């Protein structure tokens, strides 16, 4: 085990963790407001194709990321209108959003298969970003740093700010929040759109850094891992950050087992672990009452004012 191997392994783990960390951070805010959006995978794909197409056409990756963010938000608005304004079932609408995202991204992406773009490089100077050791800290794409800053800010927002408190109140007891005058529907619109925008960026990470090319359904189910991660973290931002890298290690072990064909367990074992662990954690946190480790009380329930 040389230093290079360890550094390479860490860089792989951090790289593949970033999109699920991003998507899960967005979903955390959505679920904290009492809404469950199962369309993460669809929003990520919308962001992935938008980011890729705009970067390819304009040569400007920052414009690409911006459009990816806007696309994720735009797609999430379909969900928001259906579940918030029309009171539609959140589970079914979220699933429809995922199928929609797969379909529309494949349709738009059919002109963009088989071409590559330049990967977005580290924002740090080359003597740090390419140093055999320091690249562990400085050799990542901007997405990596953005994701870490984002989840920390979300943790601060949810736990230390008044606005975060209101958002949590809306997720825990929508009727009370409404009766003391908070705009429940408006806050949920904001949360869903934020989640969509962040998922869009997560998708762009796939098509602009990790691959960097466009392929149908290139997010390969990572949107569902992000959902599992929110559960695994018990709806807490700090645990989300740690849990993301734990899931990242599992995903790296899966890749390693697949590539080398040598592993104590088959690659599928590692691939199934995030979901299995999420189910076990769900059972554990639900059986242990109190301590604030619970799903938001209004999660998945529609709120219809004066209805």
């Amino acid at each position, binding site marked *: 085990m040389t230093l290079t191997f360890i550094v390479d392994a860490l860089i792989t783990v951090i790289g593949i963790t970033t999109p699920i960390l991003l998507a899960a951070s967005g979903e955390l805010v959505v679920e904290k407001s009492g809404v*469950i959006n*199962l369309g993460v995978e669809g929003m990520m794909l919308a962001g992935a194709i938008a980011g890729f197409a705009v970067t390819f056409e304009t040569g400007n990756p920052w414009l690409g990321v911006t459009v990816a963010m806007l696309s994720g938000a735009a797609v999430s608005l*379909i969900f928001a209108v*259906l579940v918030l304004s*029309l*009171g*539609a*079932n959140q*589970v*079914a*609408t979220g*699933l*429809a*959003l*995922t*199928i*929609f995202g*797969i*379909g*529309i*991204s*494949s*349709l*738009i*992406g*059919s002109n963009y298969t088989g071409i590559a773009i330049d990967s977005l490089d580290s924002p740090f100077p080359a003597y740090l970003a390419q140093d055999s050791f320091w690249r562990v800290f400085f050799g990542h794409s901007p997405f990596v740093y953005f994701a870490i800053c984002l989840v920390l800010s979300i943790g601060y927002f949810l736990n230390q700010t008044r606005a975060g408190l209101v958002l949590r109140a809306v997720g825990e007891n929508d009727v009370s929040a409404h009766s003391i005058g908070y705009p429940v529907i408006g806050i949920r619109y904001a949360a869903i759109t934020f989640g969509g925008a962040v998922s869009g960026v997560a998708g762009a990470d796939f098509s602009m850094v990790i691959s960097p090319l466009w392929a*149908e359904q290139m997010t390969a*189910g990572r949107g*569902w891992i992000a*959902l*599992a991660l929110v*559960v695994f973290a018990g709806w807490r931002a700090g645990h989300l950050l740690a849990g993301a890298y734990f899931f990242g290690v599992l995903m790296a072990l899966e890749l390693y087992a697949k590539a080398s064909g040598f592993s104590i367990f*088959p690659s*599928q*074992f590692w*691939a*199934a672990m995030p*979901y*299995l662990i*999420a*189910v076990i954690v*769900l*059972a554990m946190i*639900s*059986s242990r009452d109190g301590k604030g480790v619970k*799903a938001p009380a209004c*999660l*998945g329930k529609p709120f219809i004012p004066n*209805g």
Partner: protein
Amino acid sequence: MRLRFEKRLEPSRTMLILTPVFSVIAVMILGIIIFDGLGFNGSQAVWELFFTPVLDSYKWRDVATKAAPLIIIGLGLSLGNQAKIWNIGAEGQYIVGAIAAAGVAFQTQYLSGFWIIPLMVVAGMVAGALYAAIPAVLRTRYGVSEVLSSLMLVYVSLQLLSYMITGPWKDPNGHNFPQTAQLTDSQLLPHDLMGSGIPPGLLVALIAAILFLVVVSKTVFGFSIRAIGEAPHAARYGGFSSDGVVWATLMISGAMAGLAGVFELMQLTRLNLGSPSGYGFTAIIVSLLGRSHPIGVFIAGIVLAITYVGGQVAQTVVHVPNATAGLFQSLLLFAVLASDVLVRYRIRILEKVNRSDDRSAS
């Protein structure tokens, strides 16, 4: 002009039946707009997608074959929908059912007899029901949302399937393809019933639909499901067990998904990468489009099967990508969910009131 939503005392029956029909029509129009906007021939794509499979009798068998699993799974899910218990892991129960039936098949590889197929069917249904029992026990014992747990288990089952077809059950003569050996003749049903062109799965779907119709409308069990869904407190007060309904709806939908998995295994004649077909997810659309009513589910299953077959036609004729069928299916679900509001609410158009006039008058 403002719109006001007034809650109906009872869901509108007319709207309940009309909205799915309107949804299909709306999606056709929306589809033309989207595809034209993206530079495809929109009207031709919609024509191939929705009408070619209906008009071309060569496509009927395909439609029937695809409709069967969708209807079978959709019927199972319709019970849960009525009780507001959301099994979204039908895809996982479907895969586990197929794996169990394949397991029976490999144990009976050198045997023959009429009992093998019924044994495979039972194994598939039991496996599907047991897999759905996991979310049921988590919900009734620990209060875990069945939505999250059943969904997570889909991905566990996908990995189990992938492991079986690349590992222990890999076809030794399969040129290293990730697939199992082919089933033998005594493990397969005929492709159609006595030359009628009707696949056996569709007959089973029809029988199941009739069975569900009787159970839901004529039995106390059917009533208890609806009671739990519409008024859980009153139902519990009336002596119905909500845990019992959770168990029943999840296990029945799991068994139905497992049954569909067995038929799909026989259809493909082996387990392979095509086994996770996504029918378990599409069946959620089927059950909602069919208004969770057995007859509605049967019709919706055929409509969704048409989009699958039509999607393949459109792919070759209009050169739209493979995912087109999925795009239409999602639009259909959006439309049904959006139009649901018409079932539950009456929409009044309010004339604009001029506030200042009001004040001067008073």
